[in-house]
């Protein structure tokens, strides 16, 4: 039972982990990517649309990367034009909610849900290595391919940020842009790289929402992008802290879903759980760091 719950919590956290990894890169160059939510939403639609047309997981992911890269480029242009990055991000969020409902109506003639019969089925993969270890087997095994990708990418990101030249450069830009420039770091290139990486991860976070369910629902991302952003702000450059907070937020999401099944508490009130507790985490974190600082 406990193992099953942990398994579900991790599954609930995976979309946020992807989004938060993406958000971390832009946060490292000193820009908060408000558009995570919109990228996620568009990507989950594109994933289902292309998967439905081609029944090919790979093509579907490529299309998601493409869509999110377009958004990333729009954000980069906004930065180049010295526009407010928050506002550009909000614009993208609005755009994606308009675009997805428009395309849903236009391409599928539906306003609520689309279910794809042709989309590839993402099987749960049991890891043979773990099959004899009773507790870990249930927690760490039995995820789909995208979820395993998330686990791998956490470590890839850790190495990329902490152990590679490009990671150092990106962090240097975020710490002090002028110093970085004087040291001969190409600030623009680092900013562009981090936004494109952010787009790629957001694309995955959208795909992991819709593809396993083989369906898309209006507003599917359901503000997970915003909650991931909170994890990004709290964690900063400490990737594992970011992931930890995503898991905590995954727990809230899980609770909100789980209690809808087993309790009689009204759905609307349960839906507030992720938001209220996320704000609470922000407050607690801010309070604890302020104490440390004296």
């Amino acid at each position, binding site marked *: 039972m406990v193992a099953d719950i942990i398994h579900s919590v991790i599954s609930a956290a995976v979309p946020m982990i992807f989004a938060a990894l993406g958000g971390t890169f832009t946060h490292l160059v000193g820009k908060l990517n408000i558009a995570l939510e919109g990228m996620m939403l568009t990507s989950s639609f594109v994933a289902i649309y292309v998967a439905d047309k081609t029944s090919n997981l790979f093509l579907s992911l490529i299309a998601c990367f493409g869509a999110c890269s377009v958004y990333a480029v729009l954000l980069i*242009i906004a930065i180049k034009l010295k526009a407010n990055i928050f506002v550009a991000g*909000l*614009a993208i969020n609005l755009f994606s909610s308009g675009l997805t409902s428009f395309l849903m109506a236009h391409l599928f003639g539906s306003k609520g849900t689309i279910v794809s019969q042709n989309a590839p089925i993402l099987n749960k993969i049991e890891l043979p290595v773990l099959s004899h270890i009773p507790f870990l087997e249930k927690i760490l095994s039995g995820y789909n391919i995208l979820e395993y990708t998330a686990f791998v990418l956490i470590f890839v990101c850790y190495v990329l940020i902490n152990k590679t030249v490009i990671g150092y450069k990106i962090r240097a830009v975020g710490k002090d842009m002028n110093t970085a420039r004087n040291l001969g770091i190409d600030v623009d290139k680092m900013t562009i790289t981090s936004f494109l990486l952010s787009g790629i991860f957001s694309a995955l976070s959208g795909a992991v929402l819709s593809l396993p369910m083989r369906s898309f629902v209006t507003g599917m991302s359901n503000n997970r992008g915003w909650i991931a952003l909170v994890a990004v*702000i709290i964690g900063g450059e400490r990737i594992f802290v970011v992931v930890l907070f995503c898991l905590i937020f995954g727990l809230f999401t899980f609770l909100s879903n789980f209690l809808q099944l087993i309790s009689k508490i009204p759905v609307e*009130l349960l839906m*507030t759980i992720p938001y209220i507790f996320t704000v609470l985490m*922000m*407050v607690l974190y801010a309070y604890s760091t302020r104490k440390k600082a004296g």
Partner: protein
Amino acid sequence: MFMKVNRRWLKVFLFTLVVAFICGSVIILTTSKNPLTAIRWFCLGPVSNTYFLGNMLSGSIPLVLTGLAAVIAFSAGTFNLGLEGQLYFATFCATIVALHLEGLVRSFSIPLILFVAFIVGGLAAAFSGVLKILFRVDELLSSFLIGQALIYIADYFLNGPFRDPFAGLSASKYISGSMMFSKILPPSDLHSGVFVAIAISVVVYFVLRFSNLGYQIKVTGSNHDFAHYGGIKVHWVWLVALFLSGGMAGLGGTIDVLGVHGRMMKGFSFGYGFNGIAVALIARNNPISVIPSALLFSYLEVGAQVSSIMADVTPEVSKIVQATIFYLITAESLADFLIGKKVAAHGR
């Protein structure tokens, strides 16, 4: 100087207008089977008769108020992304109060309802301000998340205790007609709340421009360290600005309910909050320019509706066009560039 800035603003606004209709037309052109009719209705529908015109004008009222809400928050250098939730929750509370006020004199009950909406919306926004001041929690995210939670809470009450059992959807009972704003241009939705909206934007303009508080808000917004050294209680200014901002949002939703819907319905205000932010940005934080900006957004909305009735257009077109404008406005230097002005020639 003022005229000069204004003329420049007008140019950018006209540019935005043109882009909006080109963008909408292109989308319709690629998706509609009968594009010319559709485009004509999209561009001219709202002014084609008094019914659509009235609806367009009344649709702009909540946007004027949320636009003002965003203007006030921006002026103090704060981001209030919770407008959507503040508006929704405040409107809900005001509606419930209105339902209990039956039989009161009109000139007493309407101001009271609006007052309740203002206070509730204000408190909801000020809560993020408190978190910002006490714990340095970013109000950008906290206001948004709290706003979302408030939407669900209001939905719970609308669906449960306060639901009208005879309504086919989640909605409250109808507010008594004596508390409603009177219609100006029947059968359209235009109602006398439009004067309230105009009056409020004039008041906000004078407060921001000429009052002591307005000065403090502006100084805090442009540089809060400087404001602090100048003896301005920055924390207090943030709090007041967020309170006023949330209050405006609350008024926007409530005027909409008292003027158009007559009851609180689930999801009636979707998009007012974020579009208000866009309106404020197009208006470049000027409370008077908020009015034409809101009209533009409402025009697009009604244009899309009309062309979806008269032709085969999906009404979501307006959302895409609005978001495109939103994006282009962020890159205002792009607009400057395209209309042949040097970037940053006027500072901001």
